[in-house]
């Protein structure tokens, strides 16, 4: 048995096996010679020898397996590779912050029961302005400098025309959001001639302001992944009455840094405009404003994305530069 433990090569093991349990092995010969023993001794001796043979065979088997395993391991080690060499093939792509924001918020809003509606980007004056209480002479038009086409149509200046289109298409009650590109004749570090908005509209019976408030708070908390303080300020939009703007607690400094580059020390960030839908607008959607009311909101998706991902220049978002979007990812292939 001791000699077994010392064995390291399969060949030696085979020699041992031949020596004891082989055809001419010592044990085999002993077993064969049992017949020569007196009958009364034969049984006990037979039992003893068989047990011994089983024991030796199992030990031989175990040792053999160990030797083979050791040998395999040696070979595998010889085939060692450097696991830190670069991965083959392509690295993963990266998302565009605004598109990610758009899909994230649409998903959040779906959870609150809002479906996604859409409308054309080349829009008619009628839907973009007139139905929304903004006739051509209206001073509120100054806030939305517009790109026109020679035929008098325009690039929508907000996603609000979808309010009208959705009401005309689906009627009341209604819950929709509409994400998409919008265009204004502005170009400076804080304005891009193309940007992205998400419109929301809820029309139902006896809708209170508190539901709009709850909806906006819930959306912001879900998007930023934590509970944020928010505040509502009275404001004005021609298509809502009353109208408000929503400020959320600064996502960068929570109001603790008076030199904060995001909120400039105010502690608050303006993120959305909203209000109870003006009865004229409900009427333009062919819904009876005496039976139904509702609220609408508009969020700047680019601004939300910039806040979430810490981007400071809006115009960087639309120059198509891949490197910019990739920075922060590990791979460079």
């Amino acid at each position, binding site marked *: 048995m001791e000699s077994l433990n010392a064995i390291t090569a399969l060949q030696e093991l085979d020699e041992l096996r031949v020596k004891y349990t082989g055809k001419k092995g010592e044990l085999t010969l002993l077993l064969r010679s049992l017949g020569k023993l007196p009958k009364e001794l034969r049984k006990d001796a037979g039992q003893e020898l068989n047990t011994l043979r089983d024991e030796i065979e199992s030990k031989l088997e175990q040792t053999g397996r160990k030797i083979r395993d050791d040998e395999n391991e040696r070979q595998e080690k010889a085939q060692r590779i450097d696991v830190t060499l670069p991965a083959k093939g392509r690295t993963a792509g990266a998302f565009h912050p605004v598109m990610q924001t758009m899909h994230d918020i649409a998903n959040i809003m779906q959870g609150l*029961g*809002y479906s996604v509606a859409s409308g054309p980007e080349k829009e008619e004056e009628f839907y973009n302005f007139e139905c929304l209480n903004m006739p051509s*002479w209206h001073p509120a038009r*100054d806030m939305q400098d517009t790109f026109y086409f020679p035929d008098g149509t325009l690039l929508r200046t907000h996603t609000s025309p979808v309010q009208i289109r959705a009401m005309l298409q689906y009627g009341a009650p209604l819950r929709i959001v509409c994400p998409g590109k919008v265009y204004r004749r502005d170009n400076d570090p804080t304005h891009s001639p193309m940007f992205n908005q998400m419109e929301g509209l809820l029309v139902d019976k006896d809708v209170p302001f508190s539901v709009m408030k709850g909806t906006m708070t819930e959306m912001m908390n879900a998007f930023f992944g934590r509970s944020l303080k928010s505040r509502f300020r009275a404001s004005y939009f021609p298509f809502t009455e009353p109208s408000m703007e929503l400020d959320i607690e600064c996502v960068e400094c929570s109001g603790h840094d008076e030199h904060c580059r995001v909120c400039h020390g105010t502690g608050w960030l303006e993120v959305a405009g909203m209000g109870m839908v003006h009865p004229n607008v409900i009427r333009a959607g062919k819904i009876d404003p005496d039976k139904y009311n509702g609220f609408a909101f508009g969020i700047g998706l680019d601004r939300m994305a910039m806040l979430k991902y810490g981007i400071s220049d809006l115009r960087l978002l639309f120059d*198509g530069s*891949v490197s910019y979007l990739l920075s922060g990812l590990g791979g460079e292939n």
Partner: protein
Amino acid sequence: MLVSWELLKDFIDLDVSPEEAAERLTFSGSEVEGITYTAGKMKGIVAARIDSLEIHPTERKYYIAQLDTGTGRHICITSATNMKAGDMVFYAGEGSTLPDGTVMGTRDFHGVESYGMMLSAEELGLHDVDDPSGLLILPKDAQPGDDAKNLYHIGDVILDVSITPNRGDLLSLIGMARELKGLYPKSLLKSPEWLRPLKQDKAWSEDFGTISLPDKGCYCYRLGLATGAKIGQSPLTAKIDLAHLGMRPITNAVDVTNYVMLMLGQPLHAFDLNTLPAREITVRAAHDGETMMTLDGKDRVLTERDMLITSGGEAVALAGVMGGEQTGINDDTSTIVIESACFSPVRVGHTSRRLGINSEAAFRFSRTVDPNLSSSALMAATTLMRDWCGATVDYKPLSAENEIYTPKPVKLTRRKLCTILSWDNMTEATEILEGFGIKHVEGEGDERTFLPPTCRPDIAIEEDLIEEVGRFRGYNDTPDKLPGELPRRADIGASMRLAGFIRQAMMARGYTEIVTYSFLPEDFPEKLRIPGDDIRSKTLTIANPISRDQMAMRTTLLPGLLSGLKAALASGRREPVRAFEQGKVFLKDDEHEHLEPEHVGALLYNGKDTRSASNDRAEGFYDLKADVCALIQARGYSPEFREGRQPFTHAGQTADILVEGKNIGWIARLKPAIEQELDAEGVYAFEIDISGLYDVKRNEFVPASQFPASYRDISLLVPADRSNDDVMKDIRASVAGSLALESLRLFDVYEGKGIPEGFRSLAYTLSYRSHERTLKDEEVEAVHNSVRESLKEKGYVIR
């Protein structure tokens, strides 16, 4: 709009700080965007009397002044020349601080010490108020030792308030005072001296004919007369007030009109009576095509929506928008006619928007000016002509009126109040509305009627009243709630669902998502060599672009993808570029119908540096093809690729992409000439219209066979111009009899040694399999042989 806290005190007694009022205004709808303390860092600057003046003993350009500050005498040197002994000036002594933070010391002027300095208006932080090269000489009422901060509104607090377009009534100090009165009900409104009624009953000393208003867009038109005016400077405080409120002081007569407009909100215009073409005024609609030259020297072409103020048939002003060139006040004017009128906001809005003139007057009229303001504003203006210009003003104004807007009563019900605000105290609501000047005229219970003042035409429906209550109370104490039962299942929608799938798929395959502008340079189709008969050359063009580079709506996503590549290369990127974009393109179809199909496009470029430890950097057409296939196959469709042509792609490496027999786009290497322009070799791209992929195609479920397949290979000699697709079709068509071909796969393409010129060898593996049993070798062999025979008959050479 800029609001002066000092001037506000003339109109309201308010017991709060400017900062507190700013916060209240911001939350109630008029956002205060900034607060400026006009004195800045000013400290220790006082009024001083020049007791004596003498010329510097050696440097003749300097004067040495002895100053009396009430508490002491100081020597101070100046190079200014506009003062004389006995004048009062502002003196910044040693240790005092200027508004910009400069701390005063002593300075040696060629042997004479000057202790601090005497100040010009500019040095006090007052721009445009006085000659910047001379000292600011103070009126005689100043006392030596008075702190400059407390004099002439120098130390004012200016609120920069953003006024929403519905609140034209807030574009004045008196309007802001009324708003603050509503927000702080305990405060008291009051009137400055110059706003008190003035006895004006004398007939005009000058002949004047009639005022006629044939255009109903002029609600009323009044003229006041001031005679014997002396044109000069306005009082110092008034000049400082104007400067603080963002207006350059000009002359006293012009300043009066600006001042009254800023205080009361009524735009005014002052004419020199002697330059009026005739002694009559007519306000009429312009004729289509009529022209006039406005004050800014521009010739304006008018339409009949515009209104003109004419005199003797000659246009003297574009009503409510801008004056004409000839009739203004000049230094010799002595007889002044002041116009105070009210015009339709719709008409002025049209004119100012169309002509792009956003004058102070047009800004106010298009936001509605109280029609009842014209009389009192005219009286105030004439009062100030008397006070500032020494004019005689007790003449009865001339007036003409059309129909004037009168406010309509508006009902407030407890039910609606409660629905919207979740609050229903009608008594409190009534008090709040009264505070804003909205009169409770009828009803004591759950339904009450209110009459808004003439300055608030924005209050027209019940919701407007509720907003007044809401903004007074603030919105932040209302509890948060979520909407109740769903009207229907919420659906993210086919378009957004597909967009979400595509972006995830493309990002997983290593592409970065980009978003580029929908408008492109006008000549982008030319740059891409797109011919005139191609739908993509017929671009929709913006009539009023910001620049020519953002003018034509994109008809393809390729330019955006290329701009991404250019940006990457310009930034010095050497690694591969893989980008994709999804979005609309803008097309006109044959019937000139506008279409906005959703496209997805992607670009693959190996990068300038293709060295790689794993030698896997060189990707090309077939790698990109795998990405297209993955996108389309995941929607349940099998894409087909056919050799094709695109104006901007490689003539030998371009394919059309077909789904269900319909051409949905292209995949290609770009034209080498375009690659050269980009200085990038090997740029591959695809672009597809995804509108056919919204719904995932429903395919039949096929269970896996339980029986093994039999594989046979076949190698064919094929003319080089015969496509793999065609060969595979021939192979498939050659399988006849009972056995089905389970799959057919090309595993080798070879041309070169051993293959005749103009041919290539294509090797395929065919798998036969049954769903019912294990196939016997002999039957597979028989079928495969018949395939070989059939291919031979079709002219193929089997290797």
